[in-house]
């Protein structure tokens, strides 16, 4: 990234190769829309180019990039609030026809997981994506979000707990707690 900052724009290409699929998936899980996710991914790299001068030497590139990604998604979310894209399941149904029963079950679970994720408030969803799907450490998320590590940890754990409840639909059985 340092060489991009210093004007060797071609150095962005390997960074794109390395991260664009992950970023695309990050957005896809947030928005459930392929086209939007492609646009947002493209926008991240556009911003990296435009704001390359603001990249600080020694700062982890990935956190810097995901901070932009988060901001872009937040903008997108604000603009589209109320008209959030419907869950895109055309791909799944097309594939399922061709798959054996076992595969179908696997897909079914995956779909349930995505649906459970979609039921989380956007902040919790984002925390789960960053920590569990993107594999960020709490320290890194705290840099991305500008919160303390302890606060991030508590929030991620709370989000995981909530996701588990939705995923297994146990939220109605609160009476079991002693």
């Amino acid at each position, binding site marked *: 990234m340092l060489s991009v900052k210093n*004007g060797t*724009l*071609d150095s*962005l*290409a390997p960074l*794109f190769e390395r991260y*664009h*699929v*992950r970023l*695309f*998936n990050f957005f*896809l899980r947030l928005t459930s829309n*392929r086209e939007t*996710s*492609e646009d947002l*991914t*493209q926008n991240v*790299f*556009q911003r990296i*180019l*435009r*704001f390359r001068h*603001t990249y600080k030497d020694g700062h982890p590139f990935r956190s810097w990039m995901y901070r932009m990604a988060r901001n872009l998604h937040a903008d997108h979310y604000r603009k589209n609030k109320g008209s959030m894209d419907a869950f895109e399941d055309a791909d799944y149904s097309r594939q399922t026809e061709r798959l054996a029963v076992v595969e179908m079950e*696997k897909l079914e*679970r*995956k779909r349930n*997981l995505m649906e459970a994720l979609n039921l989380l408030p956007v902040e919790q969803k984002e925390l*789960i994506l960053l920590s*569990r*799907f993107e594999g960020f450490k709490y320290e890194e998320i705290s840099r991305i979000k500008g919160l303390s590590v302890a606060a991030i*940890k508590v929030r*991620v*754990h709370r989000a*995981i*707990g909530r*996701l*588990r409840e939705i*995923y*297994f639909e*146990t939220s109605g059985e609160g009476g*079991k*707690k*002693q």
Partner: protein
Amino acid sequence: MKCKKVSRNLPSLWENSLETTLAEEVRRHLGQCENCQEEWKQLGTLMADIEAVEEVQPDPRLRKNFFSMLEEAKSGQREAAARHEERTLVEPVFWKQARWIGSMAAGLALLLGGFWMGRLQFFSHMEPTTVDKGANQELEALQGQIESMKQMMAVYMMDQRSASKRIQAVSYTDEISELSPDLLKALLERLNQDDNVNVRLASLNALTRFAHQENVRAVLVDSLPRQTNPVMQIMLINLMVEMDEKRARGSIQELLESAATPLEVKNEALQGLGQLL
């Protein structure tokens, strides 16, 4: 240990980040409590399912779009370098300096320039005695306004890139004395639609020079409700007051009433309305 506390600590246990004594306590509880045991299992399943989610491949056009964007950026970079060289060779020193002071300085210079030209234009239509009386007072007010605007612009422009070709293009109109319809249209488009506020400001200043023409006045009045940037809003409000343009009362009133309008702009709007009675 209560189930609630156990439940809260399960994610940490899963991450192996629980201190030993607490972890042991939680494990002991899990051995005795079916509900928590179930929750622990669910957590394991959830984590495993998350792990198992495969990546979706984006459409190949994403890569294509990226590389065409990169090419565009590179050619932009080359052009900038070429321009730099050209100027170094050909242009007289003072022009070279004048053009390389960066967006902030250029924007400010244009702002001040436009303001003064607007003032000159305005005073030239007045009786000399009125000028003498009001001039000092207004001069002070104006200096104050410019000072606060300088600050606002400084804040606002901090993250902008350097002066673009569009600003240069707009600033070339400083040297012309008559505004053709095409040029008016082009400036108007910059004023109302450009993404970059520097360009919009430069266009406003360029148009202000011709504010004695009725058609220019009309489009300036029309422009105020289209501006969303506070600097632009303040500039236009001040201009409307200067031109004593009563047709702008409506849109200034709207700015004053809108919840989205920043406080600084509301202050200007309030003052402006008072003067436009």
